[in-house]
């Protein structure tokens, strides 16, 4: 009897302890998520009471808003080209920095450093670096006799410019890869070496499979992050030139906070959620083909 009572007390205490978190989650996260789902079927301009309009927002989105598709294309472009490049480069640098070399800690710091620069500062800095006339990049290209493109002023080059800028901040992924590399047991390499594997074979048949869960994680996070890309375009190009950097979330922001078209913006948010969800599911589905878990 008293034991039962004590148990009950413990349970109550436990709930009280997690209560702040539960409240925070339900008020600030779950609540708005549900609200946005409801608003997506409404005409809602924040100040006026919302009005139910059925599927109109979705209809308008899919059939009457060419900018939606353009912004989706821009965002997918960044994802399809930017994320693999990012992984390739951060993995390569992690591999290099995983060697026992002099000044290893120094180099790791140097490569990690850019990723702690706030997005806003980074954007302002890169506006100078990317300037076609006086920027560093075009200057370096000119040393090789290449006439650099107009970068942010050009419809074709603005997105690649953002991708290059993103590669500057690979430090975060690099650290994750480094941690993953530390976890590859030395005995596997030793065994491979004994079997006569060369450096490429050791990488291909030992490092890569052992690292595949890390790559998978970085891939998923990278895709989700890139699908929500916003800050750079907001600060550097305002979506231009010619909507070439109007990304999905930026378009959503315009609709929500500039036109007060919250219902429509909520519908857009849910469409993005479905895309992210589908892409992630597809990734999970495909992952058994290439991701290797040691515990299996």
């Amino acid at each position, binding site marked *: 009897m008293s034991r039962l009572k004590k148990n009950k007390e413990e349970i109550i205490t436990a709930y009280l302890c997690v209560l702040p978190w539960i409240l925070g989650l339900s008020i600030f996260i779950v609540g708005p998520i549900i609200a946005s789902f409801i608003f997506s079927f409404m005409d809602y*301009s924040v*100040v006026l009471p919302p009005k139910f309009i059925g599927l109109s927002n979705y209809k308008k989105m899919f059939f009457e808003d060419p900018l939606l598709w353009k912004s989706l294309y821009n965002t997918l472009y960044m994802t399809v080209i930017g994320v693999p490049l990012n992984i390739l480069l951060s993995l390569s640098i992690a591999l290099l920095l995983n060697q026992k070399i002099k000044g290893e800690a120094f180099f790791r710091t140097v490569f990690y450093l850019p990723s702690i620069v706030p997005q806003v500062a980074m954007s302002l800095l890169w*506006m100078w670096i990317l300037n*076609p*006339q006086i920027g560093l990049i075009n200057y370096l290209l000119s040393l090789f006799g290449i006439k650099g493109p*107009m970068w942010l002023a050009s419809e074709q080059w603005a997105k690649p410019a953002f991708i290059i800028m993103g590669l500057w901040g690979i430090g975060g992924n690099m650290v994750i890869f480094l941690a993953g590399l530390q976890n590859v047991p030395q005995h596997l390499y030793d065994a491979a070496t004994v079997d006569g594997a060369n450096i490429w074979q050791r990488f291909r048949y030992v490092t890569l499979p052992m690292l595949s869960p890390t790559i998978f994680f970085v891939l998923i996070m990278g895709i989700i992050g890139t699908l929500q890309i916003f800050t750079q375009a907001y600060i550097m190009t305002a979506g231009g*030139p*010619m909507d070439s950097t109007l990304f999905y979330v930026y378009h959503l922001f315009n609709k929500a906070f500039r036109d007060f078209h919250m219902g429509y913006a909520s519908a857009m948010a849910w469409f993005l959620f479905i895309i992210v969800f589908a892409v992630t599911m597809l990734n999970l589905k495909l992952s058994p083909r290439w991701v290797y878990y040691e515990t299996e």
Partner: protein
Amino acid sequence: MKRSLKVTVITLFCIVSIVTQLSLSLAAKRTLEVWASGGKVWEDTYQEFQKTHPDIELKFVPLTGGFDERKQKLLSAVAGGVPPDVMWVDRFEVSQWAAFDALTPLNKYLPKYKVSSSQYIRQTWDEAIFPWDNQLYALPWQTDDRLIFWNKDIFKEAGLNPDKFPVTWEEWLELNKKLTKFDDKGNVTRIGFSVVEGLGANGAEWALGWANGGEYMTARSTKVTLNNPKLVETLEFLVKMTDASGGVEKASSFQGTWGTEVQAPFFAGKIAAMINGDWTFESIARYAPNLNFGVAPIYRRDIYKKEKKLVPITFSGGHAFAIPKGAKNPDDAFQFIKWITSDGTKAHRKASMAFSASMNRPWAPIIYAYQASNKESLEALAEQPVSQAIKDGVKLAHEVLAYTRFRDRSPAALLMQREFLGHARDEALYHKKTPKQALDDANKVIQSELDRLIDEWENRTGRKLK
């Protein structure tokens, strides 16, 4: 027993303190919550209000952050039912707020507090009226306008008459071609005459559209007319001008090399001539006091072509003070916005002059919407140690206000701005679409949004616009 005593004591303590708080706040002065710009000059101005209105206690909350951020704060406060009593708004957005029923109409307060439209510059007053219900939703505080500025030294060097700016657009194009310079790699090193916002100019597009006799919307803002032939012709001209200064890509990468303050492109000789705002005079006084510059109005092209008569045209924006719907204390709020837009502008000028003096900076006035205050501004400027050219320029900026226009008032005003300057203009400048196509497309987008807003408004108010 002991425990319940503790609980009782705490509860009692809470009740007592709440009751004391309540009675204290009830006994206190009427408070007025104002959300507006901060900074030394404003704080001094508010203090002056406090002195003249001892029975009202001003609770001032400075608005920080950019344009978007400020608006979101106000929006969530109004939506949440806890709006301030007074808020500072961009005048061209007043109609958007009004259409969403977020502001208190002011008409009924005007006779009560003896406020008349004639005290204010006509256009600034009109811009605060929502054309769908003809109610006034804000009192205008300040305004600005646009003029042509040119660098006389560059004109002389190029063998042009430095004292006269050409009038026709054909001459402007020639001038731009002549004064734009490139280096041996083909990079732009100087723009001859900038008429594109973001590439050295400000507000030029709107002004030139009107100069050409174009209209962006119908009078009551129910139909978008962005694609009318006059505006198409204006955009064609903007494209020609931009192409003459190297094309939009080269011009914008040149723009990326510009500095600010002393290094601003006009002061550094990187722009020979531009259409820009009257605030340029203050910058000249501060950063380039020895600049040899000229100023001229933009003239109506359509009238000049027909009658050879020079009629100025310019473009004004500016800010206003409004009372949100649901403000707890609208009468005091009105007293405040009346004061801040009339006598308060004098206090504001005094504070800004004192501030400039304390920073050892030259002073030049901004333009207030309150007419009487501007006369005093010009008198104050006459005493200032700034060049005669600046004094004459500021005077001209005040004179052309009689001819000024503002962007069409509509709940879709922001979308119009984005579609016109952000999309249509860029599509034309980048030669993606012809100016006609670009404006046709933008017109459709804005009209569809406007129709939605009209429907919403008609359904809610039970009134008909068409």
